């Protein structure tokens, strides 16, 4: 028995319990409920994985006779779920890393008043994320898609008394909604052209129709990709992710690094059979991914808040994943998704540990010299920094390499994108080591705080994730791809032989270069940010994130509000429509006012009108007799 429905249901029950009763329960019980739920999910997934590994279970497992959700006319959507290689890998990541982060949160959020609320939301998130991953049709996926957006909104704005947090949550939801708009159009297109939203049916129909390429499929793919840019923070809808750092750090780790933001990548992989038929869409995906990777990396170079650096790093790494998808190297993208989940979650959790150690400070310029004071945090974070920089034989080394190699092998556009990826790798190493040096090395710049190591509930997860960051890639891209190929299609991804090794060497060299420059600039006691000194204008541009938020504000938000208020409300609603109504009423009143003068109260005028009326009536009655006409038909004579 696989108990697959329990995977989302356990966290949902956890949400209900903690949400309804958590306020009154003791912390231990709340933690217990909150930890048992993801544990159940993880155990079930692990069990399924073991069965697959021992070949007792063949994938895919498609749920038969799933209960119907909406059934009207020709539209039939059910709650169907699917377990194949892709979703199994994703579920392992989601529930595994999710569980680890739940444990971490117990320590991190211990002092917080909204402890029960936090875990309720976290469980809710896990529920929706597992629904998304397990979805057998696009509408169910959309349920999970929007649902994780909701959980994200609730968790980013967790400390809702802070205006900045509430704003960030709202921004995240709305920007996500813009992406969802694209997703919805994609759904409509799918429904209109295939009559169904079930992935297996659409894939089957496409297979039966090998000539179908481009055109409608490009439109569908691009619309779905718009949704992905929203959820996975790519250009131009990435702006919510850095602000999302207002939420508690474990939230940033789980949702905005490891799982939710990777939903877009997962979705593209899941619907690869559509993207495969549209080279144009794939190119768009690859270009956007590479551009985002570079763009975000440049911003990350100069950020001073430790979490912001990591946020931009996440955007950048997601770009890598989309680059992988765009060159049809889906399994490489998913491989990187997995390794990224390990090291990015680790980075965030370690950053949380650092922040916890220095009493809430997040500005790296006020850190320094923490290496000796918080050793476990230091060593685990070092593993993560090495991993993300592509240090040989660590997890990201294999995954990043797989993507870059696939890009290089994909035509001339691919080579350009490969180069962009290479530069980004160098930048990545640079800013990560910058962070490393600023935080852990040099003199202690903040003497008010006495840094202390975090409790083991927080350190334990760090260690586990560090081990995964180091060893998580040893399965190798080739075998990983082979495992996933039944669900992702067979692909020849790697470039042949020697050029692959050359690319690998180049990638490592880029990382080393980034490290070296950071080492030169930051491994010294001085506090000044080296980059600021060299190009102040460029620095400002980057520090202000290219003013993108300001541009969006003045190009979209403010004009919309001004248009709504001044034109729509004042002119159309009040002046025109209100004016028309007022006009009609005015005509009626005017008519009334005029007629009113007749009622003067003056007896004589009434009498005069009476007499006049009687006279006129008399004329009418007598006229025929006077003028000899046929008359009004009244028989007056009585004869």
């Amino acid at each position, binding site marked *: 028995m696989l108990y697959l429905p329990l995977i989302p249901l356990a966290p949902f029950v956890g949400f209900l319990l903690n949400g309804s009763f958590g306020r009154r329960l003791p912390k231990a019980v709340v933690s217990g409920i909150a930890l048992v739920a993801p544990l159940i999910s993880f155990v079930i997934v692990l069990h399924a994985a073991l069965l697959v590994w021992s070949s007792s279970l063949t994938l895919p497992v498609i749920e038969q006779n799933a209960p119907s959700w909406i059934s009207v006319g020709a539209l039939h959507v059910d709650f169907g779920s699917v377990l194949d290689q892709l979703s199994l890998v994703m579920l392992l990541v989601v529930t595994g890393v999710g569980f680890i982060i739940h444990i971490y949160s117990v320590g991190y959020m211990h002092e917080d008043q909204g402890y029960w609320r936090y875990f309720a939301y976290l469980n809710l998130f896990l529920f929706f994320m597992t629904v998304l991953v397990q979805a057998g049709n696009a509408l169910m996926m959309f349920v999970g898609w929007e649902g994780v957006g909701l959980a994200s909104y609730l968790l980013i704005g967790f400390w809702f008394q802070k205006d900045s947090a509430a704003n960030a949550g709202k921004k995240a939801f709305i920007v996500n909604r813009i992406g969802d708009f694209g997703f919805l159009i994609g759904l409509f297109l799918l429904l209109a052209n295939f009559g169904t939203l079930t992935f297996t049916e659409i894939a089957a129909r496409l297979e039966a129709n090998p000539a179908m390429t481009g055109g409608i499929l490009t439109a569908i793919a691009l619309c779905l990709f718009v949704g992905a840019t929203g959820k996975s923070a790519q250009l131009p809808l990435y702006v919510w992710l850095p602000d999302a750092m207002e939420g508690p750090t474990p939230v940033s780790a789980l949702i905005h690094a490891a799982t939710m933001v990777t939903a877009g990548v997962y979705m593209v992989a899941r619907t690869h059979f559509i993207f495969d038929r549209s080279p144009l869409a794939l190119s768009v995906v690859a270009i956007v991914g590479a551009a985002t990777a570079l763009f975000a990396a440049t911003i990350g170079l100069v950020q001073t808040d430790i979490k912001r650096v990591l946020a931009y790093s996440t955007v950048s790494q997601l770009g890598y994943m989309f680059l992988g998808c765009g060159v049809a190297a889906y399994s490489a993208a998913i491989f990187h998704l997995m390794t990224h989940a390990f090291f990015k979650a680790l980075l965030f959790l370690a950053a949380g540990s650092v922040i916890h150690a220095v009493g809430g400070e997040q500005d790296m310029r006020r850190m320094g010299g923490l290496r000796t004071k918080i050793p476990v945090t230091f060593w685990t974070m070092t593993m993560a920094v090495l991993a993300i920089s592509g240090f040989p034989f660590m997890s990201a080394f294999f995954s990043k390499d797989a993507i870059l190699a696939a890009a290089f092998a994909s035509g001339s556009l691919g080579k350009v994108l490969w180069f962009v990826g290479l530069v980004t790798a160098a930048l990545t190493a640079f800013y990560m080591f910058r962070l490393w040096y600023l935080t852990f090395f040099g003199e202690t710049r903040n003497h008010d705080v006495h840094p202390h190591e975090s409790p083991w509930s927080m350190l334990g997860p760090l260690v586990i994730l560090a081990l995964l960051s180091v060893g998580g890639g040893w399965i190798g891209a080739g075998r990983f791809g082979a495992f996933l190929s039944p669900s992702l299609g067979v692909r020849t991804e790697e470039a042949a032989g020697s050029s692959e090794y050359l690319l690998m060497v180049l990638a490592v060299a880029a990382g080393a270069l980034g490290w070296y420059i950071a080492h030169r600039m930051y491994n010294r006691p001085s506090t000044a940010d080296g980059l600021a000194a060299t190009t102040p204008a460029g620095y400002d541009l980057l520090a202000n994130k290219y003013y993108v938020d300001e541009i969006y504000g003045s190009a979209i938000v403010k004009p919309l509000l001004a248009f709504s208020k001044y034109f729509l409300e004042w002119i159309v609603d009040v002046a025109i429509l209100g004016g028309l109504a007022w006009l009609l009423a005015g005509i009626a009143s005017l008519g009334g006012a005029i007629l009113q003068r007749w009622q*003067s*109260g*003056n*007896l*004589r005028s009434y*009498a005069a009108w009476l*007499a006049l009326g009687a006279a006129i009536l008399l004329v009418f009655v007598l006229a025929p007799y006077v003028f000899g006409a046929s008359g009004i038909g009244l028989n007056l004579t009585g004869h």
Partner: protein
Amino acid sequence: MNSLHMVSHEVPLAWYLLLSAVLFCLGVVGFLIKRNLITVFMSIELMLNAVNLSFVTFAHQWHQVKGQIFVFFVMMVAAAEAAVGLAIIIAVFRARATLAVDRIDLMKL
């Protein structure tokens, strides 16, 4: 005994009708022009009586008693109306201390 016979000139019917019409017009004009409420009232009575005259005339002409009976109805209504109307006039005078028709205009909108 010829001297005893009165010459039975019939007053021509038209003259009665003419008289009726003239009286009626006098009544209307009085109703419209007069300022004093009691005079207005008298004009109304004049109109009613003018009509009575014409009823009687036609009754005589057509040798029907219906007209004369109708005169009774009219006289009855006139009497009732006079009673009520005079009561109203007294009330109006008590309230407004005037019987000038123009000054009793509280019913204006």
